[in-house]
């Protein structure tokens, strides 16, 4: 094992040994101006991904798999792996590791592994099958993903993702995932944002559900066979690190309130993204950052926290009571046309606005991609037209997504076939019929590209800690393309992690641990102390009221558009609010038994710390890239303006203590195969 020990600066492999340098040369060491928040963090040693092989990109994954150590089947039984989270990544990883013969223990906070939030993914999953013969290839999916990520992702990782995508479809079909089919019995595909080929496989508007059920069923098979032990309604609250290795977790049994420790030879975090830091997002109510944040506090670097994806097609907010936002699949943009009235303040009903008084702004601004521009671009365009007073609906925060043309062209039944369930969902929530009245949509936080820093093996900077799916940062750069999240989650869980984790486990099994080990006792005490502190406050505000306020700060200043002044203001407000939280929060009941307020309180406490880091990251990155739009860095047309000379790197942050400035470790990005250009979808 040559991974660096956690939490110690200066031991990361220096960049110069990484071997591959991009065509644009070395990255300069200082950000372009002093407003990059240098007062808020310190600059540490660069970091490099030492696991990715050099040489031709086409064979890197193949060579890495060949070079990785193996564990013989008889020894796998002696090795234990903990998997936290049962979504597409965690569920598929636990099932696959179980099939391979490892002893797996799987944890989720939901009452069943089938409820992980991957279930809510609607649109589809990309794969470079080229069944349409429309010019798709692994190379093109690789290219589209790197470009879609605004050249802030690793070429090696993305190339591997594109290669594995093909196997995922085979795997899912074999499991009985009922993908949409054509009359001839072949798989149907559709197009999705950011691509000009039809490579997205789908199961009506419930692709995530169907893929997750496939993984869940595979997992249940392993559970039934005794190879995976499932612990639902258990929440990971701390990572146990012994002798520099991740060796276990502290969990709370959400039903009994019991705090327990579980030990293993490796820990896999598949705990999803942190979009709920904004309170209102398309994430499930329970989605949280606690697992990854606790690992970060124990020394795992957190990369690119400011890259958040705002999804353009969500149902607008209806009032203060709103508890979450509902996504309308991006696939709707295949047939729906986005428009607002040309005149500001035009409040006629949409059907009474004549064609020539409508502004189909995406088609006007981006003629070649039209309504199918990537999410970040569509979102910002919608925000801009609303800011100019042309937004629709009661709040003025909405644009129309109109299916009248598509219904004329294809007929109502075809549209119902493609989007029926989405239309019903829209009607249930808003009380309006989208067959008759155009939908109203507005952007909402949807996905977080940032996450724990991992190398090519998906191992974090703590040896033995692996991070997969949305919880890691690796494949999407600064912006994720539609239908790529399912692809990445399953690629990590089914194919990548089960190959790479053996290289680490080959050195195991490691020394057995007991509850009395000092590191274990310390981790456990941390957890019980924290819970007691939350219960002891007995203040006068609910957890949700703090969460809502934190979310508003983040949305206003660290949302679709970010500025130096706004982020500084946000930082001050977050700190003040966090202090208030620890004094005034009221958590009813006790730690015994089911206490949903206590669960929430712990998660919100971690969101506070994460929010600060997000703002610091957003502040230091004075360029605009993908989901991170700095108002100071835009082209004359108002598009995101990257600054490759100074920011072509991954920002990996090291935790140094509460209220201590974090340390920035930069991993330079090199582009040998996809030359960075100004992203253009015009």
């Amino acid at each position, binding site marked *: 094992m040559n991974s660096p020990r956690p939490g110690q600066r200066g031991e990361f492999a220096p960049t110069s040994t990484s071997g591959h340098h991009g065509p644009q040369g070395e990255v300069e060491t200082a950000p372009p101006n002093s407003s990059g928040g240098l007062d808020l963090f310190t600059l540490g040693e660069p970091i490099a991904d030492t696991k990715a092989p050099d040489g031709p990109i086409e064979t890197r994954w193949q060579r890495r798999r060949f070079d990785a150590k193996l564990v013989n089947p008889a020894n796998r039984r002696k090795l234990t792996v903990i998997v936290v989270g049962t979504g597409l990544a965690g569920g598929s990883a636990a099932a696959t590791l179980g099939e391979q013969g490892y002893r797996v223990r799987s944890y989720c906070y939901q009452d069943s592994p089938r409820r992980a939030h991957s279930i809510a993914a609607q649109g589809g999953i990309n794969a470079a099958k080229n069944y349409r013969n429309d010019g798709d290839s692994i190379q093109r999916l690789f290219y589209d993903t790197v470009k879609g990520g605004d050249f802030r992702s690793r070429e090696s990782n993305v190339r591997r993702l594109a290669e594995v995508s093909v196997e995922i479809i085979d795997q899912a079909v074999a499991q009985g995932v009922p993908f949409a089919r054509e009359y001839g019995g072949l798989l149907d595909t559709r197009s999705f944002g950011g691509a000009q080929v039809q490579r997205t496989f789908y199961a009506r508007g419930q692709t995530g559900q169907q893929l997750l059920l496939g993984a869940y069923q595979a997992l249940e098979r392993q559970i*039934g066979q*005794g190879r995976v*032990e499932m612990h639902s309604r258990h929440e990971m609250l701390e990572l146990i690190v012994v002798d520099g290795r991740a060796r276990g977790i502290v969990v709370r049994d959400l039903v009994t309130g019991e705090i*327990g*420790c*579980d030990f293993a030879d490796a820990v896999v975090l598949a705990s999803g993204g942190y979009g709920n830091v904004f309170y209102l997002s398309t994430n499930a109510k329970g989605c949280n950052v606690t697992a990854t944040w606790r690992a970060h506090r124990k020394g795992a670097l957190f990369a690119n926290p400011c890259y958040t994806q705002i999804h353009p097609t969500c149902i607008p907010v209806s009032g203060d009571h709103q508890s979450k936002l509902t996504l309308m699949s991006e696939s709707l943009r295949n047939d729906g046309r986005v428009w607002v009235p040309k005149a500001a303040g035009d409040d006629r009903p949409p059907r009474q606005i004549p064609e020539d008084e409508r502004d189909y702004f995406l088609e006007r601004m981006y003629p070649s991609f039209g309504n199918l521009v990537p999410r970040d671009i569509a979102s910002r365009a919608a925000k801009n037209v609303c800011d100019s007073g042309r937004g629709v609906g009661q709040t003025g925060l909405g644009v129309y997504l109109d299916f009248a043309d598509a219904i004329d062209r294809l007929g109502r039944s075809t549209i119902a076939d493609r989007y029926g369930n989405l239309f019903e969902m829209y009607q249930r929530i808003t009380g309006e019929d989208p067959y008759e009245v155009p939908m109203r949509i507005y952007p909402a936080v949807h996905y977080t590209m940032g996450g724990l820093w991992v190398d090519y093996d998906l191992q974090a900077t703590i040896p033995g800690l692996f991070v997969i799916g949305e919880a890691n940062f690796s494949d999407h750069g600064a912006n994720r393309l539609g239908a790529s999240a399912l692809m990445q989650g399953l690629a990590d869980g089914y194919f990548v992690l089960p190959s790479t984790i053996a290289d680490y486990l080959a050195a195991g099994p490691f020394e057995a641990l007991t509850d009395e080990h000092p590191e274990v006792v310390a981790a456990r005490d941390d957890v019980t102390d924290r819970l007691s502190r939350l219960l002891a406050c007995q203040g006068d505000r609910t957890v949700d009221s703090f969460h809502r306020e934190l979310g508003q700060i983040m949305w206003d200043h660290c949302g679709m558009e970010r500025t130096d002044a706004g982020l500084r203001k946000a930082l001050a407000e977050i700190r003040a609010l966090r202090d208030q939280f620890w004094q005034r929060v009221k958590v009813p009941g006790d730690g015994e038994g089911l206490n949903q307020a206590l669960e929430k309180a712990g998660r919100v406490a971690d969101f506070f710390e994460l929010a600060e880091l997000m703002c610091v990251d957003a502040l230091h990155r004075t360029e605009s890239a993908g989901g991170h739009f700095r108002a100071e860095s835009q082209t004359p047309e108002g598009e995101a303006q990257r600054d490759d000379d100074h920011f072509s790197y991954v920002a990996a942050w090291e935790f140094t203590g509460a209220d201590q400035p974090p340390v920035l470790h930069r991993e330079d990005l090199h582009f040998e195969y996809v030359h960075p250009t100004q992203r253009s979808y015009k």
Partner: protein
Amino acid sequence: MHWTTNERSPSVWRVTALSTRSPIRSSIGLKIVMAVTGILLVLFLLAHMLGNLKIFVGPASFDHYAHWLRTIGSPVLPDTWYLWIQRAVLGIALVAHIWSATVLARRARAARPVRYAHRPKVQGSYAARTMRWGGVIIALFVVYHLLDLTTGDLNPVGDPRRPYANVAADFAPERWYVTLLYTVAIVTLGFHLRHGLFSAFRSLGQQTPRGEARARALALGFSVALCAGYLLVPFAVIAGLVR
């Protein structure tokens, strides 16, 4: 606290190879028993109804029919043997039907130990929700009916060689309560069959929406026809068409 891995054997292998439980005792097996025995009983009901209608041909014909029933199978079988075989088969079917229903009802009761405070309103069909009480009512009626028109113990005439007279006396206008009881029982039977027949098809694997519509229509039509056929006789007696 530390969890250990459970070393159970694979579950499907266990249930398919080691399970000693008879599939007939599974909740689907019991349904199949109900369906098969129910269909046997329905076939009997159909034959019984058609026989009843002979009453409109006249006393001689009806009495002859009743006598003929005792001689079916002759000369291969001795007199009344067929009748007893049929009675045995029906009896076994009835016992199996009631036994399965009882086991299923007990399981259903055990499956919901705490009742809802707000009783759910019925969204499916009433016929389906009244199967168990309906079954009990029908069972009680069958006992009465046997004592009345088979053994004759409760019949004003009670002569086993003159079934026509038994029937005519039974439903005489002054014994209106017998007709009422009979009517209630037959209507209950109609409800029971309406759901029972459909349910039998479903339990035996009817699985398409079109088939479901047909099965429901058939069950309804058959139940109505059967009720009408059975009720024709007492009302004809009351109306004086049969005397």
